[in-house]
């Protein structure tokens, strides 16, 4: 029996496993994909340093190997069941036909987030109109080193739309996803660096630069890269005959409607709960937030604790966070789990 089953091998799950080993606890990571790193593994570079995402994942992976941490790939957790007589939990893994039972003394949920499905905001035409991409798509393009329109041209004008799938009662997502504003600043800056003379616009409702160094990035984007920040929520997108995209909004700082035609639009998608959160939550009696993420015991000193004994949370599974916050919370969760296991 393992001490801790870690559900999800993103940066939070990886950091948790490494920290557990340091406290002589035996963890196992269950990851539904065929590799570790979660969303960060799909990114090109990271705010606030513009450093390589791959290097961070490589560093963490080296420690996973060095510490001989068990990892199971292609292993999707769908439910958790508490054993009536034993001290631990049984996990149902995979589809119903192929149930594989694993047992552990405690469980750490690090299932992260699911990027908002931009197709739901129909007025933004994702996968309907050409040359509309999400921030996740753009990271993949940057990774390949190819930023091209559908027609194969380098875009000269690009518009970012903030808050896609966040802060939006119409689709039932009231929360702010926190990291998309600074992602918009990072990607706008990088597009200016990669494409000489590019005109980049960010349509925002509020600029939320919550982390250390973020406001400085914002100022640099304005000053050194001439990124145009326009305060207004984009109301409508439409396709022009030459496959460009026309945006309409109000420039709220001058109280006038404005329109612009650009070569490419990037939707800054927010964070939603991972797909299995609901079934996991229901089977184990865990409380979910309205946005599909897990709700801890309280918002201050117990953000890693669930209301069920022996089940803990870390990373974006609990609330939208950046990488350092996700990893710090993972270390905190292991400390809480260690205390819990000692008390048993």
């Amino acid at each position, binding site marked *: 029996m393992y001490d801790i089953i870690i559900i999800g091998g993103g940066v939070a799950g990886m950091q948790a496993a490494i920290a557990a080993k340091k406290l002589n606890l035996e963890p196992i990571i269950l990851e539904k994909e065929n590799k570790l790193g979660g969303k960060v593994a799909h990114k090109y570079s990271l705010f606030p340093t513009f450093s390589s995402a791959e290097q961070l994942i490589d560093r963490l992976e080296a420690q996973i190997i060095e510490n001989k941490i068990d990892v199971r790939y292609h292993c999707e957790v769908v439910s958790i069941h508490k054993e009536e007589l034993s001290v631990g939990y049984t996990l149902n893994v995979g589809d119903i036909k192929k149930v594989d039972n694993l047992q552990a003394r405690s469980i750490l949920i690090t299932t992260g987030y699911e990027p908002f499905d931009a197709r739901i905001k129909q*007025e933004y035409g994702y996968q309907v109109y050409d040359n509309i991409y999400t921030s996740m798509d753009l990271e993949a393009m940057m990774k390949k080193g190819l930023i091209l329109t559908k027609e194969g041209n380098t875009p000269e004008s690009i518009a970012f739309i903030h*808050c896609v799938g966040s*802060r*939006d*009662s*119409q689709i039932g997502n009231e929360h702010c996803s926190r990291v998309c504003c600074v992602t918009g600043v990072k990607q706008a800056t990088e597009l200016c660096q990669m494409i000489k003379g590019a005109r980049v616009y960010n349509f925002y*409702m*509020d600029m939320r630069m919550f982390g250390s160094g973020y406001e400085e990035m914002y100022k640099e984007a304005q000053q050194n890269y001439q990124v145009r920040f326009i*305060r*207004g*929520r*984009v*109301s*409508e997108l439409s396709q022009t005959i030459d496959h460009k995209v026309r945006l*309409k*909004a*109000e*420039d*709220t700082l*001058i*109280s*006038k*409607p*404005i329109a612009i035609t650009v070569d490419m639009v990037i939707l800054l998608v927010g964070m939603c709960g991972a797909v299995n959160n609901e079934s996991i939550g229901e089977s184990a009696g865990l409380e979910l937030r309205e946005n599909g993420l897990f709700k801890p015991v309280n918002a201050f000193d117990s953000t890693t604790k669930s209301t069920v004994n022996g089940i803990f949370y870390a990373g974006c599974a609990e609330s939208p966070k950046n990488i350092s916050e996700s990893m710090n919370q993972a270390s905190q969760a292991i400390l809480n789990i260690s205390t819990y296991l000692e008390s048993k």
Partner: protein
Amino acid sequence: MVDFGFSSYKSRFIDLDKVDTKLPTELFKEDEILRACIGCGGCSGACTAAQFTNFNFRLLHTLIRRGEYKEAKQEAEKCMLCGKCYMTCPRGINTRKIIQGIKRIF
């Protein structure tokens, strides 16, 4: 003269100490979520009437909430009641009800 786009209200100093909130509070009764407006301009960006006039729904109700409602009713008449603003508002404010309310109250 510079055209500031919204000529109905003369620009002047707003003294919040003296603002009469009775009528704006009456307007909130039409749809209490109006209190939660984030001033994003989604409504005014989508507005059909704004293509032909200087109508600005966001500015109109923000001014009312600051006690500036002398010509509010007249402004509200410019609205074509198409409802596009209602569809775009991220707070889900029933903009149509607010317009009707402005016409009735002010």
